[in-house]
Structures are given as C-alpha cells and as structure tokens.
C-alpha cells in the first residue's frame, strides 16, 4: 500500500511539473517558456470535455438512467459563474439595453466560490427536475430531461434582466488556466472513482443492471437516482462555468441540444460505465476535431496551391465514429477501466508473445 502511495505521489509530482511547464509558470523561475497557446487551449478543452463526459457517464453509464439535460445544467453553471465573477463596470457595459437586477449587479465573487456555486445551482435545479422526472424510465426520462434543458435555455433567453437575453454576456474574467481545468477534471475523476467504489456506487450499478432486483435488495431507487442526478448536474455546472471563463463570452444559443449530444457521443465512444474511457474519448474527440482542420485548410507549397474543403473534417470524423461503433459496439473501453496494473499486464503479454515469436525460429 505504501509502495503504491509513493508511486502515485511521484506520478502526481511529475504531472504537476509538466502542467507548470505548459502553463508558463516556469518562465519567471527558470526562464523556460510555456507551451503554445493553441496547444494549451486544446488541453483546456480536453479537460473541460472530460469533466462533462465523466459527469454524464455517472447518470447514463453507471446508473443506467437516460438523461439528455446536460446542456441545460451547463448553461446554469456558465451563467452563474459569469454573473458572479464579472465586476460591476463590465456588467454595466454588457447590460446596456436592460439593466441587471440590483443584488447581482453589485455582487462579485472570487472564481473558486463562483465555480462551486455554479455547481450547486445546477445541482439544485437537477433536484427540481429530478423529483418528478426520475419516476420515469428509459426513453421517457430522456425526453423529460431534454425538455427541461430546453426550458432552461428559453428562460435564459427571456429573462433579460438577469441574463441579458439573446445578446449574451461578454467580458467574463479569463481566470481559467491549465491548473483549473485539469484540476477540476482530476478532482471530478477522483470523486467519482471513490464514490463508485462505495456502497452508493454499487447501488447505482445494481439499479443499472436491474431496477426490480435492486429494489428487492432494499435499495431506495428514488433516493439513489436523485443522488446520481445531483452529482452529475453539479459537475455539469462546473464544466459550464469553466467553459464560460475560458471563452469569456456566453450566449443561450450555445447551449442547444447538440451540445448534450456532443457530450453523449463522447461518453458512448469511451464506453458507458468507464471513467477512464470517458477521459480518453474526451481527449480523442477534442484533439481529432482540431487536428482534422488540416484537411479543410488551403495549403501553399511554393507556387502550388491545394485548396481545402470546408466541412470535410466532419465527414472524416463521422467515418471514424462508424469504424469505432462497428469494431467496438460498447465503446473503446466498454465498462472496463484503464489501470496501471492493466497496462502492465498488457505490456507483459505483448512482451511474452514477442519472446515466443522470437524464440521459435531458433
């Protein structure tokens, strides 16, 4: 146990050093410049998408409840963070058409409490929808949560005194850096991993496998579903808050249904019921979408010009998805987890096979 702790600590310190390097924190101390902002932005997006995918996976993958309300909870988190971190001058400039209501106008909080509050607000709203909706099962729950997300978006669009309506918000303080995004993803992962290993987590999984059997074993279905929904929405809110601060601008149109779908796609790609799968898929999807820009760009090679085809990366991306679905119907990881022991096992088996192959001719 202590050996493992030591190993984990060494890994953590190494990762922290790399993050410090990438973030540009070593510049003042050692004169080493940080990474290019494009790379940093992609890593930031990977981490935010990982938080979103992990949280959706808790409800959809581990508890087996088909929820499609993620975009709505993200919107709540994003608007909460934005309104709580912007200062009064910035708010006055943005709310030039309909002034912001009074207590919110004067209120400015540091980023961390604002982010936590964003999660809590999203979580409370999830209880509001969860109490009636979680009595439904399967597709019906999906439709109810989807409807709820749309309601949230329409409310944001229409309550101009609080949200500035369709005009959206601008000038949100750009606090977020790699520490915040990767840190949130790390905390989210740790929390969900430990939670799923607890009796609650086992109860979630039993609900996924068979509700009636779980109930017969004395599990309070409603309580557990609501808890799962709350935690999921909390992290969706945090993810929305991180996104708001990264972009420094939000508007209601951003939080339409396709956003939920994008997160759901990541979850399915990674594997329903695999935390590491969600993280891996978030990284792949985010990176691939940026990497594939190459095929859309015009390339100038001396006098030769190769025109790009806008929209082609979506075609390639969909083809890649089809391949994954055909080969891995349960997603990249299924419901397995990526562990250090697992990697060692695979490497060991590969080594063994190579040795056998190398040994045969001799």
């Amino acid at each position: 146990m202590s050996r493992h702790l030591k190993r984990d600590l060494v890994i953590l310190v190494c990762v922290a050093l790399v993050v410090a390097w990438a973030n540009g924190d070593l510049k003042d101390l050692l004169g080493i410049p940080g990474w290019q902002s494009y790379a940093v932005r992609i890593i930031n997006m990977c981490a935010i998408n990982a938080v979103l995918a992990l949280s959706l996976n808790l409800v959809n993958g581990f508890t087996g409840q088909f929820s499609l309300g993620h975009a709505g909870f993200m919107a709540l988190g994003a608007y909460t963070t934005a309104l709580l971190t912007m200062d009064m001058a910035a708010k006055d400039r943005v709310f030039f058409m309909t002034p912001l209501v009074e207590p919110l106008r004067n209120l400015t909080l540091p980023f961390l409490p604002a982010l936590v509050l964003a999660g809590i607000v999203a979580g409370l709203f999830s209880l509001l929808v969860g109490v009636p909706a979680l009595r439904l099962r399967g597709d019906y729950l999906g439709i109810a949560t989807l409807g709820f997300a749309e309601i949230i978006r329409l409310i944001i669009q229409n309550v101009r005194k609080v949200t500035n309506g369709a005009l959206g918000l601008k000038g949100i303080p750009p606090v977020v850096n790699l520490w915040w995004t990767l840190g949130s993803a790390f905390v989210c992962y740790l929390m969900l991993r430990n939670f799923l290993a607890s009796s609650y987590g086992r109860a979630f999984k039993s609900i996924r496998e068979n509700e009636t059997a779980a109930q017969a074993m004395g599990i309070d279905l409603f309580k557990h579903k609501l808890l799962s929904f709350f935690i999921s929405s909390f992290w969706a809110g945090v993810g929305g808050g991180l996104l708001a601060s990264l972009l420094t601008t939000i508007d209601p149109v951003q939080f339409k249904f396709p956003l939920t779908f994008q997160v759901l796609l990541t979850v399915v790609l990674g594997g329903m019921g695999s935390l590491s799968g969600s993280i891996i898929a978030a990284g792949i999807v985010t990176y691939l979408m940026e990497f594939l820009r190459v095929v859309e760009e015009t390339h100038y090679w001396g006098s030769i010009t190769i025109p790009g085809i806008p929209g082609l990366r979506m075609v390639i991306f969909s083809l890649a998805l089809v391949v994954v679905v055909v080969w891995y119907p349960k997603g990249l990881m299924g419901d397995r987890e990526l562990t250090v022991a697992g990697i060692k096992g695979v490497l060991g088996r590969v080594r063994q096979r190579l040795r056998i192959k190398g040994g045969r001719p001799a």
Partner: protein
Amino acid sequence: MRKTKFVAIVLLLALFIPFLQGCGPKATGENGQGKEPEKPTEIHIGVYEPMTGASASGGQMTWEGIQLANEMHPEVLGQTVRLHLEDNKTDKTEAANAVTRLIDQKNVVAIIGSYGSSLSIAGGEVAKNKEIPVVGCSPTNPLVTQDNPYYFRVCFIDPFQGKVMAKYASENLNAKTAVIIRNVQDDYAVGLANYFKEAFIQLTGDDKCVLAELEYNTGDQDFTAQLTQTASLAPDVVFAPGNYGDSALMIRQARSLKITAPFLGGDTWEAPEFIEIGGVDVEGATLSTHYSVQATGTDASKAFVDAYKAKYNKEPNAFAALGYDAYLMILDAIKRANSAEPAAIRDALAGTKDFKGVTGTITMDENRDANKSAVILQVKDGAFQYLTTVEPF
C-alpha cells in the same frame, strides 16, 4: 484478435501525438525571430467564417467576396498575400479555437471575420490577448468592438440600422404608429428592434407610437397569435427583424389575415430564399442593408460587380461585398503603415478615413465601427429593388 485490434487502435492514436508536439515548438520558433525576417515574401491573413452549421450560407458568401478580393489584389508591399480559412461551424468554442490556430500556427498578421456577432465576440477575445487586428465583415452587434481595441468592422452597427428604418417609416411612409414583432432568440433582432423603437419614439415625439412589442422563437411556423393582435391594433407599419425564412413565412400569414401595413426589416432579409418563400406576399417588404448593385456609382464597385459575376455567375450580395471591403481595407492599412507588423496594421486601421469601398465610403470612428451610409431595398416584381441611400446622421 480483440487484443491486436486494441493495439492497432492505440498505435494509430499514438501516431497523432507527434503532430501536436511537432507543430507546437516549430511554429513558436517561426513566430518569434526564427524565419520571418529572412523570408518576407509572404503576408498571411486569416479568415474565420461559419462555413458549416446554421450560418453557413452567410459565411460562404463572405468567403467568396474575400477570395475574389485576393485574386484581384494578390500583392501588397511587393509581397504575396496568402489567405488561410478556418471554419468555425457556427460555434463559439470553435470560433475561439480557429482564431488561436490562425495566430499560433499560421502566423497571420491580421484576421477577417466573422459572420454572426456572437462568433465574432468569442474570436475577438483571443485576438485581443494576442494583439492581432481583426476586421469584421458583417457583425452588427455593438458589443463586438466594445472594449476590444483590436476589433474593427466595415459594416454599420444595429443602432444605426434601427435609426435608418425608423426614419424611413416616419418620413417616407408618414407612419405614426408601429408594431414590432421580433425573434427573442436572435441577438440581432432584439438589438435592432430596440434601436428602432428608440428612434421611432424620438422621430414621432409620441411615447406610445409603438403599439406592441411581440415576440416569437426561432423555428416557429405559426405566427397567428402575434398577427391577430397586430391586425387588431392596425398599425401604420410592422417592424419585424429576423431571419429571412421566419420573416417570409410571417409576412405570408399576415397577408392572409388581411394585414395591409408595410413590413420593414433588416439586412438579414436580403436572401433569394426570402422571395422564394414569400412569393407575391412579400412584394413591398422593405429592408435596410449595406449595399446594392443598383446603387453603386464608383469605379471600384463596378469592377467588383463585373469580376464577381464573371467568377461566380451570379449577382453579388451585401455579404460578399463586405468581405471584399474587409480584405481591401486591411491591404490599404498595410500600405499606409508600410509594414506588415500587427501593431502597425492596427494603428493604420484605426486611422482609416474615407476609404472608398464597394459598400460605401468608410471612416473608422472612435469605437472602431464604420461610419457609412445604408441602402434601403424593396421587393418589387420578385426582386430586391434599390430605393434610396441614407447617409449617416
């Protein structure tokens, strides 16, 4: 078998990793003092537009205008200008990514874009941090250039457009009362309606001249509720800014409900689909826009129209013309600054005065917005006909 597949996939993904790392440091080197001073034969200008997604048609039309401008004027200061297009998929996150990529990986000195104000705001934040000047073609929301010394635009802004239509309604149509029907989900429609109301109240001197402000949502098919109320109020004009599809549908339904008041709108109505959907019912619909082929007088605009028709075999619309102007305004700034350094281009752009563009004479005001004239068009015999030009007032 499963395992080999897994290993194959992992290896395949591992192949991607060097690209990110390879691109990173190399491009930073070029961006610094590595290659640029040695090889000053090319100037890179970035473009980020919605080439796919909800606003794809607007982005594509703008890109056509920019490409044409680049073909007609491929050089400045003896250097070749290279265009780099990034698609922002009508998505804010993608817009910010696209601008970051243009600046970090393509080493652009200036950027053009984007159709859609919210996309421009997201991209503008990145450009501001990186201190690269951006010229917007058609984002009309005042928030775009607010607090962003690196964002300029060649179009007029919503407050002016609202004022123009209010003036037209009260002076040319002698209207005393109006009803506003707007799309609440559209920042553009909400803004325009607000400014129209302000200006109309000022012009008529009557606080109650706007009889009602009615709302609908994107994708609504049935406007009977709003239109029945409009019919009962019997206004002199109806101001209904919104997207061309929704608005055309609304006007059809209004005519079938026997509402005869003229419908007024903004530049988003200017699309062939507006007339296709609306048919005879949209005859007489009036809109303000940036530019009209029939209104052009200068040689520059004639050259543009001829070249555009030759290349694309169709009439240019306002978005293509604005894209064309944005490109040429950057070239003009580079020429005046006699330098392709972003900071110098920015300062030269800020000092743009009486730039003769296709869409009018452009002068940058202190908010980096274009001070220029608007054009009023009316649907007549199944086509947009030029009515009049309104100078800034």
